[in-house]
C-alpha cells in the first residue's frame, strides 16, 4: 500500500542518478487544449526534472493553470502526449494523477476549514474503512520535518494562518508519495513572511529530490526560485531559460530576456509593472494636502454576515489628493469596510463623514451625488449587469438623470455618445457600445467600471482590488489612472488591495486590516514592507 511507504525511501530512489538524470520526471509534449472560443494551450512542450524547480511564468490568462490541470487529470488535452519517467501515460482523473506521483496545490484552497489538519489529510487518502490515525500522525511528522515546518496536526485548518494552510496543502499533495509537486500561484495569498517560509519549504523539497513546478505571474519570484523558467504567452510557449543559461548569465540580462518573451514588442509596459516605484518619493506630499479630510471614519463598526469578520471600530481620515492603501490578507473585513463607506451596508456603530458631513444614514445614490465612487472588486456580481449593453452599463449609476433621461424618457443618442466617448478614452475592446457587457473580458469590464465611476467630478474613490486578475497592460492603465487622479485632480483614493506591490507603489500611507480592525497606519517609506507584513498577521 502507498501509505506504508516511507518518505526517505522515495527520496533515495529519486536521487538514484543512473535512472533519473537522463529522463525527465514529467514531459508534456505538444499539448493543445481549447475551450469554446479560447485556445488556452497551443502546442506546448515542457520537461520537468527531479531535483529542480521549474518556474512557469505568464500573465493572467496565459494558460498556466490550464496546462497544469491537464497534467493533474482535471482536463483532457485535445492533442499531445504526457510522459512520466519516460513512459507514456493517459491521465483520466485527478486520482490517476496522484497515483502517478503528481501532487497539485491549486490556486484556490481545497481544505475543509472545520476539520483538523490530520482529518483533512485522512479525508483524501483513506482507502479502507478504518482510520489509521496514529500512522497518519507519524507520517505527518515526517513530512513536517521534511518541510521544516511546525504545525499542530490536531488544530482546525480554519484557525491556521494562510501560510500554514498552504503548508498543509503541500503535505496533502505529497501525502501519497508524490515525486512531482505542482504549485499554482502559491504566493498570491501570502504575506511577505509567508512567501519567505514558502521559499524555504520549496528549497527543502528540491533538496529531497522532488521535481517542482512553480507557477507565478511575478517575474521577481521566478528569478529567486527557479532553476529553469518557461514563459507562456497567450497559450503558447514563448520561450525557456535553461539551467545552464540561468547560472551563467547576469540576473538583469535574464530579466530582460524574460520580459521580451512575456511581452514581445510591448516591453515598455512591463517595466512599469515590474518596478515598484514609490509614489511618495520626490514629492513633499504633506505640504500639498489640504487640512480638511474628505473622508473620515470614526470608530466604524459593521456586523459581518455568516462567515465574515465585519469591521471593528475602524478610524481613519483621507484628504484630497491622497491615496491611503488598505493592506491585509483577503477576508479581514476589507469588503465590509468598502461596502459600509459606499452605503451598501449599514454600520452598527460609529460615523462616516464625507466632506465633514455625517453620511451614516445617507443612501447609496446620495453618497454618489456627494462625489463618492466605489469601484467594486465583484465586477460580474454587482459591478455590471451582464445582459445589458455596454452603453447602458456605462450609465448604470445615472439611471433617470439628465441629460441621459428627460422626464424618465431615455435619451438614447446622448447615452450612446457618452458611452462611445468613454469606450474610446479607456480603450475598451471591442469598441462597440451595443454588445452585451458580460461578453467583455475581465480587463475590459474593469475599464467600463472605471470609466463609469470616474465620470463627472469624483471626489473620493474606493478602489477594491482594482487590478485583481487583470492582464499587465490593463494593470498599468488602471494604476496610472489612480495615480494621476490623485495627483492631478485631487481625487482621494482608498486603495484596498491584497497585492502588496500595488499598495507600495500607489499609497501615501498604508493602513493594515487584520480581523476587522485597523491594525495600524504607517507612512509608505523605504523598508516598511516588514512592518506591514507583521501587521497583516496580527503582529504589532
Amino acid at each position, binding site marked *: 500500500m502507498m501509505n506504508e511507504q516511507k518518505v526517505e525511501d522515495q527520496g533515495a530512489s529519486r536521487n538514484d542518478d543512473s535512472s533519473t538524470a537522463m529522463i525527465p520526471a514529467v514531459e508534456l509534449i505538444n499539448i493543445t487544449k481549447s475551450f469554446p472560443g479560447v485556445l488556452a494551450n497551443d502546442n506546448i512542450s515542457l520537461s520537468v526534472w527531479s531535483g529542480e524547480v521549474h518556474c512557469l511564468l505568464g500573465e493572467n490568462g496565459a494558460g498556466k493553470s490550464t496546462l497544469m490541470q491537464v497534467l493533474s487529470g482535471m482536463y483532457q488535452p485535445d492533442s499531445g502526449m504526457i510522459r512520466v519517467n519516460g513512459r507514456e501515460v493517459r491521465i483520466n482523473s485527478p486520482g490517476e494523477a496522484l497515483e502517478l506521483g503528481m501532487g497539485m496545490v491549486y490556486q484556490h484552497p481545497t481544505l475543509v476549514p472545520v476539520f483538523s489538519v490530520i482529518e483533512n489529510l485522512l479525508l483524501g487518502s483513506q482507502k479502507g474503512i478504518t482510520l489509521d490515525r496514529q500512522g497518519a500522525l507519524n507520517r505527518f511528522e515526517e513530512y513536517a520535518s521534511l518541510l521544516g515546518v511546525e504545525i499542530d496536526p490536531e488544530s482546525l485548518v480554519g484557525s491556521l494562518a494562510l501560510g500554514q494552510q498552504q503548508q498543509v496543502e503541500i503535505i496533502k499533495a505529497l501525502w501519497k508519495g508524490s515525486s512531482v509537486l505542482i504549485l499554482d500561484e502559491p504566493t498570491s495569498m501570502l504575506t511577505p513572511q509567508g512567501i519567505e517560509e514558502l521559499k524555504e519549504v520549496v528549497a527543502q523539497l528540491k533538496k529531497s529530490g522532488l521535481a517542482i513546478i512553480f507557477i507565478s505571474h511575478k517575474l521577481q519570484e521566478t528569478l529567486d526560485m527557479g532553476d529553469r523558467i518557461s514563459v507562456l504567452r497567450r497559450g503558447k510557449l514563448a520561450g525557456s531559460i535553461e539551467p545552464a543559461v540561468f547560472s551563467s548569465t547576469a540576473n538583469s540580462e535574464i530579466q530582460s530576456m524574460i520580459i521580451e518573451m512575456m511581452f514581445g514588442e510591448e516591453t515598455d509596459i512591463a517595466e512599469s509593472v515590474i518596478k515598484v516605484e514609490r509614489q511618495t518619493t520626490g514629492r513633499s506630499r504633506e505640504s500639498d494636502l489640504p487640512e480638511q479630510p474628505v473622508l473620515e471614519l470614526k470608530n466604524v463598526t459593521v456586523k459581518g454576515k455568516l462567515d465574515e469578520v465585519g469591521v471593528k471600530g475602524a478610524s481613519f481620515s483621507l484628504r484630497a489628493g491622497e491615496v491611503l492603501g488598505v493592506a491585509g490578507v483577503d477576508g479581514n473585513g476589507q469588503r465590509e469596510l468598502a461596502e459600509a463607506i459606499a452605503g451598501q451596508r449599514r454600520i452598527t456603530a460609529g460615523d462616516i463623514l464625507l466632506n465633514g458631513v455625517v453620511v451614516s444614514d445617507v443612501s*447609496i445614490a446620495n453618497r454618489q451625488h456627494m462625489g463618492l465612487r466605489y469601484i*467594486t472588486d465583484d465586477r460580474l456580481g454587482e459591478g455590471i449587469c451582464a*445582459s*445589458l449593453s455596454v452603453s447602458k452599463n456605462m450609465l448604470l449609476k445615472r439611471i433617470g438623470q439628465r441629460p441621459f*433621461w428627460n422626464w424618465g424618457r431615455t435619451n438614447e443618442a446622448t447615452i450612446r455618445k457618452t458611452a462611445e466617448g468613454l469606450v474610446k478614452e479607456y480603450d475598451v475592446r471591442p469598441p462597440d457600445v451595443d454588445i*452585451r457587457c458580460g461578453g467583455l473580458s475581465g480587463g475590459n469590464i474593469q475599464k467600463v467600471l472605471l470609466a463609469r465611476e470616474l465620470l463627472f467630478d469624483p471626489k473620493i474613490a474606493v478602489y477594491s482590488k482594482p487590478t485583481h486578475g487583470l492582464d499587465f497592460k490593463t494593470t498599468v492603465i488602471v494604476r496610472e489612472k489612480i495615480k494621476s487622479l490623485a495627483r492631478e485632480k485631487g481625487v482621494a483614493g482608498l486603495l484596498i488591495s491584497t497585492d502588496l506591490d500595488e499598495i507600495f507603489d500607489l499609497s501615501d500611507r498604508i493602513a493594515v486590516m487584520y480581523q476587522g480592525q485597523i491594525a495600524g497606519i504607517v507612512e509608505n517609506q523605504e523598508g516598511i514592507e516588514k512592518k506591514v507584513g507583521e501587521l497583516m498577521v496580527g503582529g504589532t
Partner: protein
Amino acid sequence: MTETAESNMGLSDNSTKNIFNPTDGAFLKVWNSMLESIAPLLLALIAGGLLLLVLGRNPVTFYGNIIKSGLLNKHGLQDTIIRMAPLLLMAAGLIVAFQASIWNIGGDGQFLLAAALTAGFGPMFMPVLPMWACFVTLFLIGMVAGALSTIVPAILKAKYEINEIISSLMMSFIGINFANLLIKGPFRSTKTLVPQTDVVPFTKLLPSIPLTRIHIGIFIALIFILVVYYVMKNTSLGLKLALLGQNPRAALHAGLNNQRLIIGAFMVSGAFMGLAGTVEILGVWGYMRADWNPNFGLPLFALVFLARLNALATIPLVGFYAVLSIGGHSAARVADLPDDFILIIVGLVLLFMALTEYIQEYRAGKSGKLLNFFRSLKGIKTNE
C-alpha cells in the same frame, strides 16, 4: 425592453455572437427569435395531434373546428376578441412583474377579488352614480383591490427576501376564497337561489362597438399594452426594472431603491390583474356567481414567456390562445372531449418551450429566464 428580454433569455444574441456560427445580421436575428416563439407552438400542436390520434379523434377535424368556431365564425370571432381584453391586461401585469424577476403567481386571486368587488358594488352604484363615474370608481376599486392583494408577498420579498412564488400563491388562495366569501355573504343577491351577486343590467355594461358585442375593454387593454411596451423600452423605469430583474445586486450597487421597486412593480402587476377582473365583469357578465374562476392566469405564463416579455408580441400570441380556448370549447364538445383538453395543449407549449430553451442554453452555455424560474421552484439558484 425587447433587447434585454431577448438577451436575458440567452437566445438570439448568442447564436449570432458565437464564434462557431459567425453568421450575423438583423434578418437572422428576427428569424431566430420568431422561430423560438413559434417552434414550441408548432411542436405542441403536433404532440396534441398525436394525442388526439391515440384517443381516436381526427386531429385535422379537431383543429379545423377550432379555427372555424374561434376565428372564421362571426360569433366566435367576437368572443375571441372579447376574451382577449382580460388576457391582455393580465399579460401586461405579468410583464411588469417578470421584467423585475418578480414571480407573481397569484394573478387569479387578484383577478377574482377585483371581479367580486366590481360585481358586488356595481349594482349598488349604478342607480346612484352617473355611468362614467360608476365605471371610473369600479375600475379604481378593481385596481386597488388587485394591488393590495399583492402587498403581503411584495413586502415579504422586499424586506425579508422571502420567495414570492409561495407567498403569492398562498395569497391567491386567500383571494379566491375571500371573493367567494363576499359573494356568498354581503354581496349575495336575494333574488336568486344560487349564490351570486345582483346583476348590472345589460344597458349599463361597458359600451360596445356598434353592431357587435365587442365591448371597449379590448381598447383599454391595447392602450395599456402599448404603455407597458413603451415604458419597458424607452424609460428609466423600464431600465430600472430590467436591472433589478437581471442583477439585483448590481441594482443595489447602482443606488436603486430595490425595496421600493419590488413593492411598486408587484403592486402595479396586481393592479393590472384587478383591472382585468373589473373589465371582464363590466364588459361581459354584469354579475358574478360563487365559485366562478376562469383560470386565465396560468396559461398566460406560457404566452408571456413565448413573447420574451415583449408586450407587443403578446398581442398575436394572446390572440392565438383566445382562438384556441374559444374555438377549442366547441371543438372539444364536437369531438366529445372534456373542455380541459385545450389546457393540455397549453401545458405542452410550456413543456416544449422549456425544452427549446434548454437546447439553446446547452448550446450557448447560459441560463434562460424560464429555466431559472423552474429551478427556483425547486429551490436551486443558478444565477449568481
